[in-house]
């Protein structure tokens, strides 16, 4: 199952990467492959959970992660309040 292509906010700065492999380890959707350094191989699989960015000791990855709940997003749009998930 695949979601919408070319919308994901994942950014990777390979100049900062040391190839430690943490990103590939925490990613639940096989977005990264690490040989000498990391490489994004399945960008459209990314769900923006933010695990890679949070566990990169060298701040080589940026991603706008957030609550992935449509109901919460529509509600926050209407009420102007911060998105908070139902789960």
């Amino acid at each position: 199952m695949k979601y919408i292509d070319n919308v994901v906010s994942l950014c990777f700065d390979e100049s900062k990467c040391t190839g430690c492999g943490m990103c590939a380890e925490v990613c639940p959707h096989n977005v990264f492959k690490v040989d000498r350094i990391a490489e994004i191989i399945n960008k459209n699989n990314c769900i923006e959970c933010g695990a890679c960015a949070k566990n990169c000791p060298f701040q080589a990855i940026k991603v706008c992660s957030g609550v992935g709940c449509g109901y919460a997003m529509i509600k926050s749009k209407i009420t102007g309040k911060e998105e908070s998930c139902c789960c």
Partner: protein
Amino acid sequence: MQINTIRQPYVSGFVNSGNILIPKIFTTLSLKDRFSGFMVRLGYRRMHYTVRQGLYAVGNPDSNSPVIVTANYKLTFDVVRKAVSGMNLWILVLNTHGVNVWCAAGKGTFGTGEIARMVKMTKLSTVVSHRNLILPQLGAPGVSAHRVKKLTDFSVIYGPVKISDLKKFIDNGNVADRSMRTVEFPLIERMKVAPLELVLGWKILIGVLILSLLNISSFIPLIGSVIAGIFLFPALLPYLPFRSFTLKGAILGLVWACFCSLFIATDIFTVLEFLLIIPPVVAYMAFNFTGSTTFTSPSGVRYEIKKYTWPFALWMSAGIIMYFVNVFRGLL
């Protein structure tokens, strides 16, 4: 000496570790555990289903036994203790306010700070001689492994996604293969989360029931679209065309609307009503299901909101107008 004065029903006894008494837990679920778990899945007191934070013993662990970390949502805790039956280990339960690991990690309550706090509070470094914590991989969005190391001296090892792979993972020397690291969303998982939409969608259900009372011929089509949105949509998810959930839902709704038009509609006005009201209702419920899946991104959901809110709101409004036209015609 620390001791919980009230013994929780899942505690079978105590293990003495140095100067600390650590509650030992049952790894089989009681009938009551199963029943309340079932009720929670239906939404009953879902936000109050917690276990006490702290360190627990499974089997007969010693200072070399692994430490696994989990959330204090009781449904999570029950799945974990059942899966570690027969093993000897420690379970560190964080206070995630009764939220599961994945959602709590997203919010940061299953996070670096909470791990550091609980490691100190339970005096974990005096209970075990090693300095490793095994975390569920899906806790990673809330945790910085390198920061936990700095704060507590404990190294974070990300375990498998599913607790059922934990034994294999540990036997493997704490190494996970690709399949243990990857999240799937098979039919059974999709159906497990489906009833939740019913709980969140009860307002839609009541709205639909009220509409059906005014015009009884709309009852089956409308109830049918709620059932399609809640149960059929998750089941058919991989087979429906398009990537966006709104369009997938609209297609499913159109199929149901066509079916109703062929077999239930009495004239062109009811056909119009079905075609206008059913697809947006199913599309909205389908869109909501993005929050329950394992493969949708917030950016994608935002894209759907931006692109489809207005067209579908108009579609829906036209449907409601058509509905009242038919109610009015029925009165003539």
